[in-house]
């Protein structure tokens, strides 16, 4: 099983992106090449700013930490931990994907009590489009299973003087002509910098773009800013990576346990008169 994580890529050595081998690849091979080059790193710790922007340009900013760790059995654990705003501090989303690609996730809401709430995506087991009020889906977070999809290469395109390979992704076994997504892979380093998401009628629903690309190791690149434009809801979510560390020390195994999450909670503030709230309100004003 292989993934194309939308938020995190790692790479291993691959044929050079401009070589004939790549040029003549079909869709699936090209996606495989992308995966191989930017393969997920086993231990990643990130500090992120998540900015939610509505159609009138109003912004809400959340600070969070993201932990991801690939286990030896091929599964992967993810943890998102919110630090601000103060009202949602400590909110956690834990997700585990086993090697077969089956995902489970649960929430922890500090204000609800010490209970972890198991979460199901929906009655079909699909990930829904709005994860915690963002324009990303949980699928975007934990990655897309390459084997679960069919990939069809389209004509290459040049956008703003940059050359792209274009690959349409369909649900596996779905013979529809309408793709789920269209990936734009930069020819120079095989990094997916744009993904268009379509609805069942083939209309552009969302557009995910990656910016501020940095070469983190060898031919492996990462984006320090990801943006999802939701055209149907006229809403945008921007995730900015403030800090990224590839280190097992930052992502110990127990970080994904309920015990760790509970023991790393800040005490609840008083509702109305907390100076911290006032300071936060002042910042927003």
């Amino acid at each position, binding site marked *: 099983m292989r993934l194309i994580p939308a938020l995190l890529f790692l790479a291993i050595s691959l044929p050079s992106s401009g070589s004939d081998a790549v040029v003549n690849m079909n869709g699936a091979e090209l996606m495989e090449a992308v995966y191989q080059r930017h393969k997920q790193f086993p231990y990643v710790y990130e500090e992120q700013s998540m900015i939610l922007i509505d159609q*009138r340009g109003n912004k809400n900013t959340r600070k969070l930490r993201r932990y991801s760790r690939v286990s030896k059995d091929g599964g992967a654990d993810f943890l998102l931990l919110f630090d601000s705003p103060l009202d949602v501090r400590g909110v956690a989303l834990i997700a585990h994907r086993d090697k077969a690609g089956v995902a489970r996730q649960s929430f922890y809401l500090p*204000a*609800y009590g010490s209970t*972890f*709430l198991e979460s199901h995506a929906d*009655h079909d087991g699909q990930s829904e489009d709005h994860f*915690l009020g963002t324009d990303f889906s949980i699928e975007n977070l934990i990655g897309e299973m390459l084997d679960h999809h069919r990939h069809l290469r389209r004509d290459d395109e040049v956008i703003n003087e940059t050359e792209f390979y274009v690959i349409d992704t369909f649900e596996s076994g779905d013979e529809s002509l309408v793709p789920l997504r269209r990936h734009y892979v930069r020819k120079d380093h095989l990094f997916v910098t744009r993904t268009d998401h379509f609805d069942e009628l083939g209309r552009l629903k969302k557009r995910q773009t990656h910016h501020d690309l940095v070469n983190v190791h060898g031919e492996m690149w990462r984006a320090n800013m990801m943006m999802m434009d939701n055209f149907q*809801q006229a809403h945008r979510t921007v995730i900015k990576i403030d800090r990224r560390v590839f280190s097992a020390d930052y992502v110990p195994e127990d970080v994904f346990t309920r015990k760790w999450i509970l023991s790393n909670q800040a005490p*609840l503030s008083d509702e109305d008169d907390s100076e911290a709230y006032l300071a936060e309100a002042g910042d927003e004003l």
Partner: protein
Amino acid sequence: MIEALFTFGLNHRRLVALLVILITLPLGYGVTKLEIDTSFNSLIPADEPEKLAYQSAMDEFGSDNKTIIYVRDKNLWTARKLARLDHIVRELKDLDHVYRVDSLFNLRIIKGTPGEDGQPVISTELVIDDLPTDDISAADAQLRAQANPLYVGNLFSEDGYVTAIIVTVNDVNDQEDFSLEVYRQFEQLLEKERDHFERIFQVGPPRINAELQESLASDFTVLGPLSAIVLVASILFFMRSVLAAIIPLVTSVLAILWTFGLMGWLGIPLNILSAMIPSLIIVIGSTEDTHMMAAFFRGLAEQNTNEGRPTTAQRHQAIKYMAKHTGLPMLLTVLTTFLGFAANLFGDIVLIQHFAFASTTAILFNGIVTVLVVPPLLAKFGRKIGEGKSAEELYGNNLPDQIISTFRISQDRFPLVVLSLTGLLCAFFTYQASNLYVTNDPLSYFPEDRELIQETKTIHEDLAGIKVFFVTLEADNTNAFLQTSNLQKLNKIQAFIRKQNVFDTTLSIVDHLKYVNKEFQGDFAADTLPQSRQLVAQYLMFFHRSELESYVSHDYRQANIIVRHNISDSHTLNQYVDELKDFVSHISGDGIRARVVGENLLVNQAAESLMVSQIQALALLLTLIFVLMSIMFTSLKGGAIAMIPSVIPIVLMFGIMGLVGIPLNPGTAMVAVIAVGIAIDGTIHLLAHYNELCRTTSDYEGAVHKAVQEVATPLIVSSLALSLGFGILLFSNFTVVAQFGALAAATMLISIFANLLITPIIMTRIRLVGLYQIIAMKVDQKVLEESPLFTDMSNYERRKAILISEIHEFSAGEKLVRQGDIGRNMYMILSGSAKVERRDGEAVRELAKLRPGQVFGEVGYIRAIERTADVVASTPVTALNFEYHRMQKDLKFFPNIVAKLNFNISGILGERLADVLDSK
């Protein structure tokens, strides 16, 4: 001056024709620029302070331009029907201008179910993700949909037979025919689906606007021609003259063309009220023409008593006669009608302001066209009318005669009974007027049986009303509406609204939180809010911003409750909204500003200002007319009496409205001022005639009867034509216009009764002198100044004294006073000369010569004794006749002047006595 004005067109035919062409061409082109306005904005006062608050709420919580597509089918939740619905939603999304489609296909539920460890498992899912392939999965989807209390009543009916698709349209109001286009696109799409569902239709601003536009266009094209037909028919019936029927049409068409052209150039749009202007101008404008033509025919008839064609000179003379007899009254009636329509300019509602501008301009243009065009037309074609007909024959129909003879019996035999009964009638209708209520709801503009209204009711019954308003709360601090104390305030407001039991549904962030709380905590937490601010914030993470943006601002500083209802009566709505405002203001407390806003509310609140502005306009107009009439007849009593025929119809009209339940709305609110402006026309003609007749007789009752006789035909003809013309408006597609027409027609009929029955009774008790007569009087100033009768009187008083006397003309050799006769009158010579002769058998002795300014017969005036000499005109003589009994009557009408005259007569008599004594 008036004669010059009315003969201007006659004397400068080419210039007038050129002028008419030069004005008509550019203004005719302006008609092509005329725009149509059916927006709700025109129903709201332009300077309405709440408008800003409404706009601000719209900016924050989203547009309210939403169309509801209602779908009913008892098999709605089956795979086949859901597939059709899905097809409709997809096609709707594909349409231009469609911004968002909310339906059961993008509804999401948050569901808590007990897990293995007893803790809830939370799932968030779409009601329908993939289309159900069988009826079992469709039924599952129904269960999921109905599990969310936020949707039941808003998007689904409880029985599951009805669902709504809510389509939000991009706001591109500046695009011409936008609403019509959107409505047609929706309709085209729904038409294909009608076979697939038991019922499917749309209701929303595009349809309402489209129907308003279509109805307006239909009114515009149908009502004008219908009015023209009615006018021609009624004039033909009463006046038996084709030309008399055609002339008002010519003047009206020109006035309408000029008006709409000017509106086109000025960017003033046509609205549902101004669409009736062609009818109004055809009908109202014709009254002036009718009066003018009646006077022209009279002028012809008086010259042309023998059979034969009138000569050009005779026709010109008839036009001068017309100018003299109807010129000033006509100008005054144009002015009062103009004022009647102009009074509406002071209203706050843009719809009425635009109508007021259009109608006022049209009346003015009609007056100008009439004065310029009618005299040359009559001079050209007039001969065919008067030919071979007596004055009586000219007015051929005897209906007016029958009416006035019936009225005369009442006037002569039971005047007090008539006045008392009228007083009682007015008192009864004044009481009924207290039941009057006001409404400005756009949907009430359509008749109750219209499909749109019926379908609106269906949505209200199966889901909730389509009318929406917002209760917004705004705090000083961000995150205020994460605090449970503030959420409780919202909760209490919603509870209060439910308790009011008049609004259909309310929805706010509180409902969303209660829903999530129940799913997380279980049924025991149903209808309860989260206990802490943090839990509120954390629950809200499960919603996308687009799901909350209608209920809370991004910074949680403002919150919004959406209220849906179906109340059409502005008064009731305003009453409950005021009650709600009080409660909201009380509950919101310090630091939170609360508002109850909505376009629907603004429109309905405008109803109150409609009432106030119309009362102000009416008061202003009545005051203006009172002042105008008082000046015109140089008497406050005259002013007051002139008001009576105007006030009675208004009182009766408001009473009828209260009695039969016709509301005060933008249409009916204008009837009063317009009716006053028109009804006063008949009164002016009546009083002017009476005044003129009083100059030649001391029999005031006879003068009243004659004035009524002369004015009755044009007055009845024009009033009936007006009634029929206004009655045409009953064919309008708009209830407001139809009600306007019905009431205006009734008011015109009542004004016949008031003008011809009530006014004459009061007129016999007054004596008026026209200011214009005083000013226009041609007398030798020196004669007046030197006459002992006018000693110590101002020039104004002298002229008025002349006018309250009778004026007699004598030819040379005619006897003014006959020796031996007993007469209680005296004369003053205005012009010419006379001699005093005493007959003694066959011998005649000249005693004195009399010149202008001198008075004679004063002894007979004081005491009924035989005249001692003849007074014979040496040259043609014009003399004022002061009759004792008449002067005694006039003493109460003009006490100052008659007292001065009496004093001067005493002085003259004293002088005579002194002369006699001296001679002895």
